[in-house]
Structure formats: structure tokens, C-alpha cells
């Protein structure tokens, strides 16, 4: 079991980010209309700044920012998106790399972590900016259109036991429809919901609980309450540790358990799930990360910027 407590994380004063953060060789961020994404892009010091433009946001060429490198994949598939990014970056060996995951799509974050590891990147700085609030509190819509398909993130499908018990670990966020789709897809699974707590702000926990309660029959299942776990909304390492402890518990209770993880909460928690898979899940086997296919996504879901975090991810 990995001790995730030793990984480096710190809060950055937003007004002093140019001083508190080192200058990077390459900085990557996913473009959207949120203040927090654009402020951080402006404030961070880097030799190269690259905008990743996810097709899910459906930006027209006229809407795109000027003055920096753009990566504009046309397919929503994570392999195509990450390959386009990697092709734009070129060889990154030895370069200091910083990624703002705030606007990234979850499936791209998860695949990117594994891809970077395969490309030989051993350390990457990840930043995440917390919002002041979600634009419409518990009514905020994130994914606006889904295909109805739930599938493993490419490369993280794993090989499962043919007759093992199925365990579904869900990172619970505001998107009740996504939770419902995942739970329906794995409807024979024992569900372990991980609620984001402490949340980014006190009211957000209640808002996510209200939204999650609307997730269909999974929220009526006794396991929704008695298998509930908590992980901080803004800490990928603690999230990975919670996933790790759930899997350890599962492995004590079930022989040949097949683990499905679905990070539907904050991007930070998605990173935490990806880190667990990288450090433990791939070696354990019979563990994959699954997500509903989002065709479109809201460009602006938050207001303001409250805090900025830097996480040093070691792969």
C-alpha cells in the first residue's frame, strides 16, 4: 500500500502566483470561459503556454484565445486528444511541466497521467483553482449531453476475473445523471460512494448531497449510506488513499473482486483516482476506471477563484 501522505501539495496565494510558483518550461491548461482558468493562465510564468481546447466545449474558431499555442483535437476520444497534445508539445524529456487540470475533461486527465508515465515523465506539477461558488449552486449543470455509453478510459480496461464480485467506487459530484448512468451500467455491483468532504466550501457538500440523491435507484440502495466514504474535494493524494483503503477492505471481504472506479466529482479527485490506478490498480489487476461518454460540456460552471493548489505528481 502506498503512503500518499508523503506527496507534496501546497496552497498558492492567487495574487502572488507569479512569485510563489516556479517558472515552468511548459504550462498547459484547458480553455473554457471560467474566470479561474483564465486568471491562472495569465498569472503563471512559463516559457511555453499551451491551450488545450476540448471539443466537448464546442468552441468556434472565432471564440478561441489568441497569442498562444492551441491544441484543437476534433475527436472526444481521450487517445486522440492526448495524442494531439503530445504531438504539439514534442519531446518533453527533462522539461519542467505544469498542467492546470481545472478545465480538463475527466477522461483526458485520467489517460494523460498514464500517457505521461509511459512517455517517461517522472514528475509533473499539477495546479487546480477552487471556485468561489458554482454558478447556480446545486442546479449547476456540468455535462450537457451524453451518449449514454459508459466505458473504460482507454488503456485502463484491465483484465477481469470471469466470476468475481463487481465493486463500483464512485466519486460523487454534482452530476446526478452521470452517477445514474454509471450505476446502471454496473448495476450488479456493490457500490462504495466517495463523497467530496471536506468540500471546496461548506455549502458545496450539501449541494452535492442534494444532487446525488437524485441519482436514481443507486441512491436508494442501503450501500449508498452504509458504504459511504469521504475524501477531500481538493486533494488528489488523500483521495487516492481513500480509494486504496476501500480496495484493501474489498480484498479482505471478496475473493477475485473486479473493481470499477468512476471519478465523477472534482477534477482533483479524478486525478486522485488516476494516481491510485497508476500506483496500485495496474499492478493489482482487475481494476479499471470507467466514465460516461460526455459529448458536450458547459463552458462556464463557476464564479470567481478562491484558492490555488499545486500538487507535485510523481509517476
Amino acid at each position: 500500500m502506498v503512503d500518499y501522505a508523503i506527496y507534496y501539495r501546497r496552497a498558492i496565494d492567487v495574487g502572488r502566483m507569479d512569485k510563489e510558483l516556479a517558472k515552468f518550461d511548459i504550462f498547459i491548461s484547458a480553455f473554457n470561459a471560467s474566470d479561474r482558468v483564465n486568471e491562472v493562465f495569465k498569472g503563471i510564468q512559463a516559457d511555453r503556454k499551451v491551450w488545450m481546447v476540448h471539443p466537448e466545449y464546442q468552441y468556434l474558431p472565432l471564440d478561441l484565445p489568441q497569442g498562444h499555442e492551441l491544441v484543437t483535437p476534433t475527436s472526444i476520444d481521450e487517445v486522440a486528444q492526448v495524442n494531439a497534445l503530445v504531438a504539439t508539445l514534442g519531446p518533453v524529456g527533462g522539461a519542467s511541466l505544469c498542467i492546470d487540470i481545472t478545465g480538463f475533461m475527466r477522461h483526458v486527465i485520467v489517460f494523460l497521467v498514464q500517457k505521461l508515465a509511459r512517455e517517461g515523465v517522472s514528475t509533473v506539477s499539477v495546479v487546480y483553482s477552487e471556485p468561489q461558488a458554482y454558478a447556480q449552486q446545486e442546479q449547476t449543470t456540468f455535462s450537457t449531453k451524453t451518449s449514454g455509453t459508459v466505458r473504460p478510459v482507454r488503456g485502463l480496461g484491465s483484465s477481469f476475473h470471469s466470476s468475481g464480485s463487481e465493486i463500483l467506487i464512485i466519486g460523487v459530484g454534482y452530476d446526478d445523471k452521470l452517477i445514474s448512468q454509471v450505476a446502471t451500467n454496473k448495476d450488479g455491483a456493490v457500490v462504495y460512494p466517495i463523497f467530496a468532504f471536506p468540500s471546496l466550501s461548506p455549502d458545496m457538500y450539501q449541494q452535492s448531497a442534494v444532487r446525488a440523491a437524485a441519482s436514481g435507484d443507486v441512491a436508494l440502495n442501503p450501500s449508498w449510506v452504509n458504504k459511504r466514504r469521504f475524501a477531500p474535494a481538493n486533494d488528489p493524494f488523500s483521495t487516492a488513499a481513500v480509494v486504496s483503503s476501500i480496495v484493501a477492505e474489498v480484498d479482505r471481504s471478496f475473493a477475485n473482486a473486479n473493481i470499477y472506479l468512476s471519478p465523477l466529482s472534482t477534477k482533483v479527485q479524478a486525478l486522485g483516482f488516476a494516481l491510485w490506478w497508476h500506483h496500485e490498480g495496474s499492478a493489482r489487476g482487475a481494476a479499471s476506471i470507467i466514465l460516461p461518454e460526455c459529448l458536450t460540456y458547459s463552458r462556464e460552471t463557476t464564479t470567481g477563484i478562491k484558492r490555488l493548489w499545486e500538487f507535485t505528481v510523481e509517476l
Partner: protein
Amino acid sequence: MRDTQNPFALVRASDFSDSQINGLWVELGSRLINAVIEPRARISKYILGGKGTGKTHLLRYHSYQVARLRVANESGLQTVARQKFLGVYMRATNVDPGRFEPDRSALRKWQQLFGVYFELRLAEDLLDALRDIKQSSVEAKLDDAKLIREVQRSIHDASADNLTTVEELLTWVEGQRRGIDHAVDNAAFSGQLNIQISFSIGALCVPLTRGLAKWHPAFENIPVIFLLDEIENFSEIQQEVVNSLVRYGEGVLTFRITGRLYSRKTLATMARGEENREGSEFTTVELDNILRGFDGYPSFARRFVAKRLISGAGGPGSGSGAFDPTRSLEELDSSRFYDHHVRTLGLESATASFVRAFEDAVDSADTSYGLTDDVTLVVEAHLMGSFPALVQRLNLLLFCKKLKKRTNPVHLASTIADAAQRFVDSPTAERRSFYATAYGHYAVDLFAQLCRESRKTGPVYSGFDTFVKMSSGNPRNLLICLGRLYESASFRELDFTSNAIKLSIAMQTEAAADAARFAYERDSNYGSAAEPAREAINRLAIVLRTARYALSIPEVSPLAVSFSDSDIVGASKDVLRAALNYSFLFEIDEGRPDRNSQRLMRKFQLNPLLSPRWGLPIARRGDLPLSKDLVNAIFDPELQRDFEAQLRVLSQRWNYPFSAKAGNARTQPELF
């Protein structure tokens, strides 16, 4: 709050252990079940049905693993002999089919790989059953070598040459599957799919199944049936693989394939092969239709509920088996014109409201109706009299429906009042009168109007039979209702399952509304196709609600609509199909030609589980005919404004029956 587990929780068949599948099985009748699954038929079959119609339970019940547990101390071979078939169960999601379509430009290559992988999973599950048969049938002479030789002939891989036992073959199959798993994962990073395929599609399961008779003579006439669950999770090209196995399975590969109503995406076989044909390569049965038309459903529902309590998720009353749900739920007392409820629910206040609606209608009346102020006073005096509230309301309705331009209003009102008086004085003697017929038709709707207009309660839903009707033959829907009721009762420290108390009508109504909200808002997240269907259902229900609560109700118990098949066009067609697929709507029967125009008319009913959300009835009587414009305004997501305009026209027509200009909208749309 009582600390008990809800015995009506939505535990799905996929959550049950093998022994629970047996324990919770409630027989619909062996003839009906056999007609659905036809376990010995050598032709493949699709069993389609909405969420909760019991598809998974049905398949798992017929699987070898579950059948083994039904008789203690039985060997696997004895189980197969008793069953007279060998059922192998697999969920479509177990192959994680989404992994097999990463590259749209090479779909055929990935289709081949998926086909091989799918067949490996089928073989793995079959071999797992054979291994169990072998282990549990120690006396039997099972010839592994002959079986393996049959399979080896079609495998082009040296690693399979030295296999000699079922166990070794199973290990080899698992190894092949894991090899594909790793190759697919690696392809995401390398862009290369490095895998050696050791057999062609069909070349593993066909010889394996055919070889069983050589393994042991007991399999001579035993069909192997692959029970494939939730086929909707396979894409179109993946379903082509299944269709190819169905078509070219040489009579030895037989499937029972379950899925939602929308699950079947293609009938084509691989490589642009021929399409499978209904009746030739496969048959289809729709469970929803069977269950909705199943006369024994009410008694099934009672046994189903009792079984839930006995099998017990630990709820009170579990173990007794004597729980009778009808005795725990207060029912509406319709005697004496619902007098008891008019008093206890305080519905007298509704009178002023419906009289005001009548007077509004009279105010806007065309002068040719002769409804002057003086005349109206006399008419009202006749119709209202000292009748019970429900009769007063019926009198107004009949007056609205019967008044024509050349009719004498006072005479008509007097005639209605006389008939009402005779009916009130002696309902039995007057049971054949027009008034009794009208009362029989409209009483439920008018009582709902009283409830709504009184503003002290909404329309009420109560009684076990009501919940059974709301479930429309779908046991899961029944659980949704009872689960809500149980929760509500538990919160109030009431023991719903003891038969010692009756849960109030108000509590039942609240549970019905909760169940409807759950079904409409939370239980229908199927991706983007469901959203326009949900909105269309909202519009349709608003039309039905406008009809039910109108002064001059246009149709008795409006829950169904009809329209010509040729009238629905463009995007509306897709949305209608989605509404049917997601069980928001039921098609009542096959299209029938209109008597006058000979056009094909189709009839649809709102799922009554949703009814409480809009205060609609749970049983249908007539059907509301929809015009071409209206039906498209309901089902086309882009026609919201048209819909609002059409709704205003309908509301005008149904609430102002004497108005000269039915199209002159007076109502405020936001009221609807």
C-alpha cells in the same frame, strides 16, 4: 425513526446471489414462463422489456448455476437431466464492450476482435459450468479427450495442442482472453494492436457445444442456451457479431437475449451479411405486453410483496407470511358520493371554485345560448339545489355538455336536476338511467376536481389495487411505490407491515407522488435521447391534465391519446419512439384504421406510475384524439411556442364551452 431495512428497496436481480434468485422467484405460471423463455427451442429468441420487468431474474433463474441450487445433493449431470437444457448466463457489460471501438476508421478490425473476445467469454462461462458438472458427477464417465479433440480441430494455435482436460481448456481460454485484454489496453498507448487470433468467430463455441454429446451421452438431446442479458450495451457492429452467431450457429448455438425495448440496433450479420429474419432465425417476445395483459398479475403482485417480506430484508412482519397489503392501506370510500371524504378532506370549499368557473363560462357565452343573467340564476339554482358537492359538479358538467344553441337552458337544467334528485334518492333503482351512467363515467374525475379545487389536498391515490394498477404489470414499479410508502410510514414510526394499522390516504398520496417524481426525474437517465422524450411527456401530460380538470371534461379519465400514424412527422417520430422505449408511454394496441378516413390510428397511454405528478387518473377509459398540429407540437422539442398556443386553444374550448370563439384564448399559460 425505525431502524429497519426497507423490504421494498429497489434491489435488482443483478444484486441477488444465486440462492436469492431461487428464493425470490415468484411463479407467474409455468406455462407463461415456458412460453416466454422456451428453454428447449433450438431457435434463438429476443426477450425485450422495460426496466424491472424481470428479464435478469428470468435468465438467471434458468442458468445452470442457479438451477443447481434448487435441489440439494444433486449432481451437475442430474441438474442438466432435470432441466433438459444447459443455460449459460452472461451480462453484456461483462465484456466491457466500449473498449472495442476506439478507432472509427478500423471498425471492422475491432469488430473481429470483439467477436473473438465475446466468444471466449461465452466459452469460459460454459466451461465453468462443465467443470462444475465434472466435479459434482464423480460417478459419470466424462470423456474430456473427445470433447477437447472436437474443439482443437478449429483452433490454429500450438498452445492448444496439448490440452487434455476441461480444466486445461478453461485455463487456455482464460489466457487467450487476458491476452486480448492486455493487447487492447496497450493499443491505447502504442497505437498498435498486437494480437494473434487463434480461431475464427464461431469456431470455438460451436464445436464445444457440439462436442458435449461426445463428452457424455446424457447431452445427446440437451440444448445449450446462452442467456445473454442487457444487449442494449452492445453497439450496432457488436450486435452484428451476436446476429452472426445466431444465424451461423448451425443449430447448436442458441441464445435467449434480453434487453430494453430499444435494445436491438440491427438485424444485420457481419461483413454486410444477410439480415436475420423474425420467425426464421429468431423470435421476439415483449414482456411488457405480456405482463400488462396478464390477468393473474394482481394475485402475483400480492405473492410478490409477501415474498419480499418473508425473504426479508429484515423488515417487520418478515417471516410471518401473513401480511395482506390491502388491509394496511386505507381506501377511498366512494359510497354516498364520496360524502365521507368530502367532509373529512374539507372539500366543500371547492363548490365556490367550480361555480365561479361555470359563471365565467356563462359570461363569455354566445348570446344565441340564451344565458342571460336571469336565466343563469335559475339554471344555477336548479343545478346546485341542495345536492352533494359531487352531484352539483356533475350537474354542471352535464349542462355544459348538453346545452345546444336551440336548447332551453332552464328546461335542460330542470331535467338534469330532476334526474339527479331521483339518482340521489335511489341510486339502485336509477342504475340504468342516463344520470347513473354519467356518474359512473365521471365520478372519479370530478372527485379529483373537488380535491384540486378545494386547495386543501391534491388528487388522492390510495389502496393496494391503485398501486398495482400504477405498476402496470411491472413488479419494479410496484416496489417503487411500496418502498416510498414504507419509508414514509417508518419515518412516522408506523409499522406498515403488521396489518395492525391502516396508512392514511394522505400518506399514500404522498408516496404515490414521490414514486412518480422518482420515475420521471431520477430513474430515466439514459443519455441525451431521453431528455426530449421527458419533455414531450411533460407536454402530453399537461394536455391530459387540462382535459381532466376542465369544466367540460372532453373525455372520461383522460390518460390515453390517439392520432393518425401519418400525422406524426420529422423529429417527433424519434421522440415518440424514445418515449416508448423508455416506458414513459405505452402503445395500447396495434394501429387500427380510422372508420371514416381509413388512416392508421395509433393509441398511446401515459405510464400510470407517472400519473400523480400531474394529478392524472391511473386507469384509462377513453382516448383523447390529437390533431396533426397538436401531436407534433407535443413531440417536437423545437415547437414549445406552438404547443403553448395549441394548449390555450384547447383550454378555451374545454373551459368555455358556450364561447363563440373557441380559439380566443383567455387562459394564462403559466397556470398550466
